């Protein structure tokens, strides 16, 4: 058989979905933008298991390959494994975003038996005091660190990430060094403080100034490279809605997690209709500019 590569993905193709399957969470992180909807009346509005499975089947039928399940805390849904295992059986490459505090040894075993493409865990600090103040959850630090150990012991692909803010700004570099010592574990530094989903901009008060961020990133070569890349004038225009898209906990299809001004109701209409006909009409202030370059995804061959 000749060599074959997964190369030319059309310019508009639903390749990667970020799906906020719940706003439920066991923690109350001070900077969280979804926690305002972590309340009974909003939870009752969230998609049911059957609705999620039905929409997921539509995504698979449309060719979607990468699926990121996030929250809230995805593991806070009692039906999490019904959703996750369905996604895996459908052949999605599933990434999980989690706070890591609900993963027990049994859950780690279950994940290892059907491994996610990647598990990304928020690591706010290496000290119990700071960590638990950020999450407002006593014992969350110990549970998170235990989870990291459980997952690494099972050789699962883990990425740790920190949102830099006033409460942990003096610890970011230590976290970075800690993660570097964990071998294959990836690291991401977030700096964005989003307004809450109900429109409150108060998380912004926890954010760092550009000077404070500069002071941190310039001390680490990789963080510095990434910061420079983001600052570069060469950054391409936003591609959200073309090969990536977002679904919220209520089944609204949106351009991305950060732009929810418009949504297409997947409870009412089909995914293909929403993605190909409605999503392109949604506004985004970052979309003007150069044409998109093609994704060049190479792949092995049998």
């Amino acid at each position, binding site marked *: *058989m*000749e060599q*074959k*590569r*997964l190369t*030319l*993905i*059309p310019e508009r*193709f639903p*390749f990667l979905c970020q799906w906020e399957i719940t706003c439920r969470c066991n923690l109350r992180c001070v900077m969280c933008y979804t926690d305002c909807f972590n309340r009974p009346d909003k939870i009752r509005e969230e998609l049911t298991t059957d609705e999620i499975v039905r929409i997921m089947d539509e995504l*698979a039928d449309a*060719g979607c*390959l*990468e699926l990121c399940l996030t929250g809230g805390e995805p593991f806070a849904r009692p039906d999490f494994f019904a959703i996750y295992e369905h996604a*895996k*059986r*459908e*052949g*999605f*490459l599933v990434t999980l975003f989690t706070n890591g505090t609900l993963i027990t040894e049994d859950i780690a075993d279950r994940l290892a*038996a*059907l*491994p996610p*493409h990647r598990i990304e865990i928020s690591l706010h600090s290496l000290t119990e005091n700071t960590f638990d103040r950020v999450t407002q959850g006593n014992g969350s630090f110990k549970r998170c660190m235990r989870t990291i150990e459980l997952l690494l012991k099972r*050789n*699962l*692909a883990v990425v740790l990430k920190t949102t830099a803010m006033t409460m942990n700004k003096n610890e970011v570099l230590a976290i970075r060094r800690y993660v570097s010592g964990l071998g294959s574990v990836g690291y991401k530094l977030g700096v964005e403080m989003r307004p809450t989903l109900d429109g409150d901009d108060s998380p912004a008060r926890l954010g760092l100034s550009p000077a404070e961020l500069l002071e941190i990133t310039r001390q680490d070569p990789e963080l510095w490279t990434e910061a420079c890349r983001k600052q570069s004038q060469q950054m391409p225009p936003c591609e959200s809605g073309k090969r990536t898209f977002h679904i919220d906990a209520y089944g609204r299809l949106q351009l991305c997690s950060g732009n929810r001004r418009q949504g297409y109701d997947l409870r009412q209409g089909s995914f293909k209709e929403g993605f190909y006909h409605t999503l392109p009409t949604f506004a985004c202030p970052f979309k003007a500019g150069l044409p998109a370059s093609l994704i060049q*995804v*190479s*792949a*092995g*061959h*049998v």
Partner: protein
Amino acid sequence: MGKIYAKNADFVQREVAGECILVPVRRQLTDINSLYVLNETAAAVWKRLDGKRPMQDIVGDIAQQFDVAVEQLEKDINAFIEDLLRIRAIEEAPS
């Protein structure tokens, strides 16, 4: 070519942007590059592996569909089957 092969249910076939992909659901992928992308003939073989039909039937089918010489096709398909066996995407079924 008289052998019969059954698929391993832990490999899921997906159609993505016109490509036929095999996703190993129980394996930790190091990156997206470790997916298996099948060419047209390989995809046609994969779709016909059902644990019942002998390979000679499948080759005959495909030779008709693609209008190619059976000898070359057999060679290609044998190599493909070897690859599938190596990654344990299929196993020989009792005939």
